[in-house]
C-alpha cells in the first residue's frame, strides 16, 4: 500500500534536522551566513514536508496509529525499549506544528541573527545558533514521535538541553550586552528548575515500569484499567508525578520561574522553544497520557486547578511588566495554564487546539517583539552616542550569589523596555500590523484563532469545572488588558527615547515569516470551527472518547465582552493620553501597592531565593567547610590517614625498624670490628724483633705440636 510506504519515511523527521546540523558543523566554517541559514531552514522545511506526507497518509488511510520500528535500544531483564516511531494523529499534529512554525522561525532567524551577532560583536556565533536550532527540532521530533515514555523522555531531555544552550547563547553578557553572568545564570536556572520537573517524570517512569513492566504507550495504556482495578493508588501516583514533569517543562506553578528568565535567549529562541513548541511538551504529555488521566479524576482535578491558577497568576504578573518580552513570557505561562487546565479537565482537543493556535500567535508575537527590539537597536545605533559595549570576559567576583534582579541600571539603553518605545507604528508599519494581529488573536477577539481555541477551553470549563472557568475567564480578561497595554505603549503615542524615534523597519527575511504567521493567527481557528470539528475528528483516532465541544454563546459572548472591555480599559489608561518619557505607569497610580506586587512578580524569585537557593547555598557551604573541609580533609585525611601513615613511617619503620634495628646491626658489626682491631693493633708494634719472636714462638709451637702428636 502506498500510505504504508509513506509511514516508513518517519525517521526522516529526526534525521533531516540532524543532517542539517551536521552540514553546518562540518562545512559551515566555509559557508556564507545565507547558506548556513538556508541549510538549516531547508532541513527544518523538509521535515515539515515529511510531516505533511505523514499527515496525508493518515488522512487517506484509516487514521489509526502506526508504529514504525526503527532500532533496538535497551534489552535488560524485563525492560524492553526500542526506538520506535509512533505515527498517529496526535503526534503528526505536533510534528506539523514543530516543523512548520520551526521552519518559519528558522527563516526569520536568518535575518534576526545576522543583525544580532553584529550588535553583540561576535559574527562567528551565527553558525552555532543554527546548529542549536536544528538540534532542537531533531530533539522535539524525537519527543513527539517516540512510541514509549522513555523515548519521549529522551526528547524531553534533549529539548531541555537545547533550551539551556540557547538561553545562554550570549552566555558572557546580560541581555543588554554588558559583561555579566546574567544570561548564563538564566540558562542554569532553566536547566535546574527543569531537572526538578524531570525528577517527577522519572519517578513516574520508574513506577510505570515497576507495575506495567513496559514503557511503550500501547503497553501501558492496555494494562492501565487492570492495574487501576488492582492497585488504585498507582495510576494516581504516576499521573501526579507526571504533573511535576509537566509543571517543570510547561512552566506551571510552582516551577514556572525559569520561563521569564529564559527570555535572555535571542527572540527566535523565545518564539520557538519558550512559546510555540518545547513548553507545550507538557500539554502533549498529558494529552498523550489521556488514557491514564481519565482513570483518576483526582489527578485531573489537580492538573486543571494547577493550570487554572497558573493562568490567572501569570496573567496578573504580565500586567505589571515593563519588558516587552517579559510580558509575553508571563503571557505564555498564562496561556500554557489554559492548555494544562484544558487537558486536565479532559478537554484534550481544546487543549491541543489552543496549543496549535497559541504556537501561531505567540511565535508571531515573540518574533515581532524581536523585530521591535532590532528596530530600536538600529535606531540606537544611528544615534551619535549609540555605542554598544563590546563584551569582555565576565567578572568572576560575584558569580553565584547575585539576586536575579540586581542588574538593573538606568544609564544603559534597554531596547526591550517598553518605557523606551512609543509611536513605533509609523517607523515599523509591518511589524505593527502583525503585532496587532497577534495581540488580538491572543486577546481572543473574533474571528482570530485565539478566539476559537480559548473559547473552546472556556466552554468546556464552564460545563466541567466552574471554578477553573472563573479563573480562566479572569485570566482572559487580564490577557486582553496586558496585550492592549503593550500595543498602546509600544506602537502608539510619541517615542519616549531617541532610539524609538529613529527605529527602522526590519528587512523582508524577517517580515515575511511574520506575515505568514499572522495569516495563520487569523485563520488558525478554522482547524476546529464549531459545528465542523475537524481537529476533534482528527484527534479522536488517537484520544479515545473525545467529544466535540458545543459552542456556547453565553461563554463566547461573555469572554468577547470582557476582552473588549479590557482593551477599552487599557486604552483609557495607556492610549487616550500617551505616556511621556519618564512617566510612572498609570496603573500604578490606580492600583498602588498591588501594581508593585505585580511588577515585582509577587517576590516569588526572592522567596525561592530565600527559601531554597540560599538554604541550598548554606548546605553547600556547610558540606564544603565542615564536612569536606574540617571533617573529611582536616580530620580523616590529615589526622587519620596522613597521621597514621606518618606515625607508621616515621616512628615505626624509620625509628624502630630502620634506625634501631637494621642500623643497629650494621653499626654493631662496625663497632665490633673496631674493638677487635684496636686490640689486635697493639700487637703490630713496629718492632721487627717482636715479630721475629712471634715467628719463633710459632715455629716452636708448630714443631712442638708435630713432635708431640
Amino acid at each position: 500500500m502506498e500510505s504504508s510506504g509513506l509511514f516508513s519515511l518517519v525517521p526522516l523527521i529526526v534525521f533531516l534536522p540532524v543532517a542539517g546540523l551536521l552540514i553546518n558543523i562540518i562545512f559551515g566554517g566555509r559557508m556564507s551566513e545565507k547558506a548556513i541559514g538556508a541549510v538549516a531552514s531547508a532541513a527544518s522545511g523538509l521535515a515539515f514536508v515529511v510531516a505533511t506526507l505523514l499527515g496525508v497518509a493518515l488522512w487517506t488511510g484509516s487514521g489509526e496509529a502506526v508504529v514504525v520500528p526503527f532500532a533496538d535500544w535497551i534489552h535488560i531483564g524485563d525492560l524492553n525499549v526500542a526506538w520506535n516511531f509512533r505515527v498517529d494523529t496526535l503526534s503528526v499534529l505536533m510534528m506539523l506544528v514543530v516543523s512548520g512554525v520551526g521552519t518559519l522561525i528558522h527563516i526569520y532567524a536568518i535575518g534576526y541573527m545576522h543583525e544580532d551577532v553584529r550588535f553583540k560583536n561576535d559574527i562567528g556565533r551565527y553558525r552555532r545558533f543554527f546548529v542549536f536550532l536544528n538540534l532542537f527540532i531533531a530533539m522535539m521530533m524525537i519527543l513527539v514521535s517516540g512510541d514509549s515514555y522513555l523515548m519521549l523522555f529522551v526528547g524531553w531531555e534533549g529539548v531541555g538541553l537545547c533550551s539551556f544552550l540557547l538561553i545562554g547563547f550570549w552566555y558572557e553578557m546580560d541581555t543588554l550586552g554588558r559583561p555579566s553572568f546574567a544570561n548564563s545564570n538564566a540558562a542554569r536556572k532553566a536547566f535546574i528548575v527543569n531537572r526538578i520537573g524531570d525528577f517527577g517524570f522519572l519517578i513516574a517512569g520508574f513506577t510505570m515500569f515497576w507495575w506495567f513492566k513496559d514503557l511503550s504507550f500501547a503497553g501501558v495504556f492496555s494494562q492501565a484499567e487492570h492495574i487501576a482495578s488492582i492497585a488504585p493508588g498507582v495510576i494516581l501516583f504516576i499521573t501526579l508525578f507526571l504533573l511535576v514533569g509537566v509543571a517543570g517543562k510547561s512552566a506551571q506553578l510552582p516551577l514556572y520561574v525559569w520561563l521569564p528568565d529564559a527570555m535572555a535567549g535571542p527572540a527566535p529562541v523565545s518564539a520557538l522553544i519558550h512559546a510555540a513548541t518545547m513548553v507545550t511538551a507538557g500539554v502533549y504529555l498529558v494529552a498523550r497520557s489521556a488514557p491514564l488521566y481519565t482513570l483518576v479524576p483526582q489527578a485531573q482535578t489537580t492538573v486543571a486547578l494547577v493550570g487554572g491558577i497558573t493562568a490567572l497568576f501569570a496573567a496578573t504578573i504580565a500586567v505589571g511588566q515593563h519588558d516587552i518580552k517579559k510580558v509575553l513570557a508571563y503571557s505564555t505561562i498564562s496561556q500554557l495554564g489554559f492548555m494544562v487546565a484544558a487537558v486536565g479537565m479532559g478537554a484534550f482537543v481544546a487543549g491541543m487546539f489552543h496549543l496549535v493556535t497559541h504556537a501561531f500567535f505567540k511565535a508571531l508575537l515573540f518574533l515581532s517583539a524581536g523585530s521591535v527590539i532590532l528596530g530600536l537597536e538600529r535606531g540606537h545605533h544611528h544615534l551619535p552616542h549609540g555605542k554598544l559595549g563590546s563584551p569582555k570576559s565576565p567578572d568572576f567576583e560575584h558569580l553565584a550569589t547575585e539576586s536575579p534582579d540586581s542588574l538593573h541600571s538606568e544609564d544603559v539603553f534597554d531596547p526591550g523596555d517598553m518605557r523606551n518605545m512609543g509611536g513605533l507604528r509609523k517607523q515599523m508599519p509591518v511589524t505593527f500590523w502583525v503585532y496587532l494581529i497577534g495581540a488580538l488573536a491572543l486577546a481572543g477577539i473574533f474571528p482570530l484563532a485565539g478566539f476559537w481555541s480559548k473559547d473552546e477551553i472556556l466552554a468546556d470549563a464552564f460545563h466541567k469545572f466552574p471554578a477553573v472557568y472563573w479563573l480562566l475567564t479572569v485570566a482572559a480578561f487580564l490577557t486582553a488588558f496586558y496585550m492592549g497595554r503593550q500595543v498602546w505603549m509600544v506602537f502608539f503615542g510619541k517615542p519616549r527615547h531617541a532610539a524609538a524615534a529613529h527605529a527602522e523597519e526590519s528587512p523582508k527575511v524577517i517580515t515575511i515569516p511574520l506575515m505568514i504567521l499572522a495569516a495563520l493567527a487569523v485563520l488558525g481557528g478554522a482547524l476546529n470551527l464549531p459545528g465542523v470539528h475537524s481537529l476533534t475528528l482528527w484527534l479522536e483516532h488517537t484520544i479515545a472518547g473525545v467529544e466535540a465541544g458545543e459552542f456556547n454563546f453565553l461563554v463566547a459572548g461573555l469572554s468577547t465582552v470582557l476582552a473588549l472591555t479590557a482593551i477599552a480599559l487599557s486604552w483609557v489608561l495607556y492610549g487616550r493620553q500617551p505616556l511621556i518619557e519618564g512617566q510612572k505607569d498609570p496603573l500604578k497610580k490606580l492600583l498602588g501597592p498591588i501594581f508593585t506586587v505585580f511588577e515585582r512578580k509577587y517576590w516569588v524569585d526572592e522567596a525561592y531565593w530565600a527559601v531554597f537557593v540560599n538554604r541550598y547555598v548554606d548546605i553547600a557551604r556547610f558540606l564544603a567547610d565542615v564536612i569536606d573541609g574540617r571533617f573529611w580533609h582536616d580530620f580523616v585525611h590529615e589526622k587519620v590517614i596522613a597521621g597514621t601513615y606518618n606515625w607508621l613511617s616515621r616512628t615505626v619503620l624509620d625509628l624502630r625498624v630502620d634506625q634501631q634495628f637494621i642500623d643497629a646491626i650494621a653499626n654493631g658489626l662496625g663497632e665490633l670490628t673496631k674493638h677487635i682491631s684496636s686490640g689486635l693493633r697493639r700487637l703490630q708494634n713496629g718492632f721487627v724483633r717482636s715479630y721475629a719472636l712471634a715467628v719463633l714462638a710459632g715455629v716452636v709451637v708448630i714443631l712442638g705440636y708435630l713432635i708431640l702428636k
Partner: protein
Amino acid sequence: MAQTIPLSWYLAISAALFAMGALGVLVRRNPLIIFMSVELMLNAANLAFVAFARSFGVLTGQIFVFFVMTVSAAEVAVGLALIIIIFRNKHSIDVDLMNSLKG
C-alpha cells in the same frame, strides 16, 4: 778412623748455633750484630744439611749449602745497603727506633 762421630753430635752443635743466632736476633739492638746472628742461624742450618748429606751419602744437602751461602751473601749486601740508607735518614741504626710500621 774406625770410629766416626755420630750424626746426633753434629745436629746438637747445629741446634746450639741456631739457638744462639736466634737469641742474638731477638735481644741485640745493633743491626750489624743482628746480621751476624742471622748468619749464625743460616750456618747452623748449613751444618745440619752437610751432616745429613754425609750421613745419608747423598750430595743434595751439600749443593743446597752453596745456594744458602749465595743467598745469604746477597741478603747481607741488600741488608747493609738498607742500614746505610736508614742511617742517613735517622742518624742512628738502633732497631728500636725503626717502628714506624706499627698499627
